[in-house]
């Protein structure tokens, strides 16, 4: 039983990591139906910026929570700026093109950004300072550490907030409208460019938060972390029903648990095989993902 619990919480952590990145993925997908392969790179840049900022700030004498908050803030600002610029350069000119063109542009951007960081910084792994201090009340608990708790709660809170935001605010409604029919949204007074930019900024902000929390949890980063995390987050987003925020979280969790239990009870050799196998299995029975809506097409 203890073993089961340990695996359960391990899967939960892993799942919430996937979920946190997947939310940004799913938001961008939701609005422009683009698999933004460069999202993982934004996450990576967020982590790198946080690391750089934290190092600079700690030399200046900052420490503790203020360091986390400040470095996190800088990371968010920069990630948002990168996300914003990314959209303007690589996707906006392709809005009218076939759906695959921005996908290729995204792959190109992903390669570019990886190599940019590789060349400007280093190819090596860098230690990421433990910005999150251990909560004292978690001292006795073995199954969960404070960074895990933080990741979990940030995921939960941001999902809830964003879901409300999209459901009830004017911007949120505009986002959904733009996602379905850009021209019509324009005709109803929606500034489509701005809505898309805001979406990228929100998505990138989440990626940056993810970058800071997750890197601080794992303790190391390099220029390549975004790619793998991105693929998994994308899988999670699809599993849960792409475009749906709660779906992204659920998808992340399911993926995390699958991997954890597959490792625990079968073999970690085939952990990803199980993960992708489950994906195929679920999609066979729910072709639009766990929480996804099948498209309402009137014939």
């Amino acid at each position, binding site marked *: 039983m203890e073993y089961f619990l340990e695996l359960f919480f391990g899967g939960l952590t892993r799942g919430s990591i996937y979920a946190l990145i997947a939310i940004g993925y799913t938001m961008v997908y939701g609005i422009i139906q683009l698999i933004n392969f460069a999202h993982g790179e934004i996450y990576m840049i967020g982590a790198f910026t946080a690391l750089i900022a934290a*190092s600079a700030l700690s030399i200046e004498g900052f420490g503790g929570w203020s360091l986390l908050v400040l470095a996190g803030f800088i990371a968010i600002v920069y990630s948002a*700026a990168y996300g914003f610029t990314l959209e303007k350069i*690589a996707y906006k000119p392709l809005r009218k093109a076939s759906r695959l063109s921005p996908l290729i542009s995204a*792959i*190109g951007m992903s390669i570019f950004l990886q190599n940019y960081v590789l060349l*400007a910084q280093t190819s090596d792994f860098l230690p990421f300072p433990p910005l999150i201090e251990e909560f004292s009340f978690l001292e006795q608990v073995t199954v969960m550490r404070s960074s895990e708790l933080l990741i979990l709660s940030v995921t939960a809170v941001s999902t809830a907030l964003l879901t409300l935001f999209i459901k009830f605010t004017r911007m949120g409604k505009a986002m959904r409208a733009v996602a379905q029919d850009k021209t019509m949204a324009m005709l109803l007074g929606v500034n489509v460019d701005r809505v898309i930019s805001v979406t990228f900024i929100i998505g990138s902000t989440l990626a940056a938060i993810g970058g800071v929390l997750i890197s601080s949890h794992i303790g190391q980063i390099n220029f390549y972390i975004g790619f793998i995390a991105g693929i998994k987050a994308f899988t999670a987003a699809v599993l849960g029903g792409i475009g749906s925020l709660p779906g992204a979280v659920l998808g992340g969790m399911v993926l995390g648990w699958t991997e954890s239990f597959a490792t625990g009870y079968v073999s970690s050799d085939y952990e990803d095989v199980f993960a992708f196998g489950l994906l*195929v299995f679920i999609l066979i029975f729910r072709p639009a993902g766990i929480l996804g809506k099948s498209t309402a097409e009137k014939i």
Partner: protein
Amino acid sequence: MPYGRRAPITQKGGKILRSFGVALWFMFLTFPIMVIKISPLEKNIEWRWGRMIYVGAGAFVLSLLWRYVIEQKRGPIPKEEADPLKVDTKDTGWNRGGSHSLQERLAIFFHKNKKFRILTFTGLFFIIAAFPFVFSTYQTSIIITALMYVMLGLGLNIVVGLAGLLDLGYVAFYASGAYFYALMNHHFGLGFWAALPMAGALAAIMGLLLGFPVLRLRGDYLAIVTLGFGEIIRLVLENWNEFSLGPSGIARIDRPGTLGIDFDLRDHTVYLYYIVVVLVAFTIIVVSRLRNSRIGRAWIALREDEVACQAMGIDKTKTKLTAFALGATWAGFVGCILAAKTTFINPASFTFMESAIILSIVVLGGMGSIFGIILGALVLILLPEYLRAFSEYRMLVFGASMVIIMVFRPQGIIGGTRKRHEFHVKEPTGEKP
């Protein structure tokens, strides 16, 4: 003017000011990563301010250039052209209602001038035939690689370009072809020529196996499942040592058999070059015939509208499965060639990035256009090779090129050519209109 986003910037000053703004923005953007270099352990920071100036200057120039190119692309505001009377309706092939791009006009021109066509083809034939004797083994070798990707691109084009099924796991079939030959050769000494068709058949069967479960999926759901499938195949190859010899791969695979003649490295390369050229020619013929056949039309119809497609009596399941199977076949062939070419394979060659590159070839070249895909493969495979001059900056430039090509030619290098069927239907006799 508020929201003057369409207002063309006419004065030079405006352009320069904007580019200046862009430069400042990029200086801000690249500040932490370009300028600050940290060594976390030594707790010191190196400030590389010089780089900021480079970034600023570079961004300024590029932004000016970007604007210039975009303006050129959009063309001048046609005042004269707007005259309704000037629209030429004479159907000369060159001037079809003025609605054809240069590329289309060239295509029509090419179609209409038989002499020119024959001349081009013979010229091309000689260039291709003489290539390995003029250039070095290295050049021949990378051209072989590029041609292999032409085949992969054309194969994937069946699935993605024609049938509209986004497949991100194409590499799985490539791997199965390669491993089939490698294993058969390793264990049973099976020769290349025997293995080639079998590898294709095996890949086709794998295509069917993948096809069945994913039939109901659409668009990006299909993409992720195929991506997963690709990864599963790679992971199995990595983990199942007893079967695949694991991550250390299979070495010393035989090169294509030569009927007992002794070949050195150069001869082998040349020989393989001709094999690949013939196979590419074969692929082009098959793919273009398929595309213009009943099956090909069904694929395209399926891509355009599934519901209407079924209402036309097309069996969705069967059509999708044939697309998967036929697309996979080429990957199987090329996999087999890959194993024979490198004489060594391991699972590391079959990552998701490989699928992404093949997909990029299809899209970048121009979906559905055979010539486009050939160009796409040549660009994407030869580019990194020729970018070797940039050494470390190679992949950086490569990524940037992909973005730039897409942005400036969203429909692909040779895109926008929807299938041109010049049908010359005889006046039906007897039947009343």
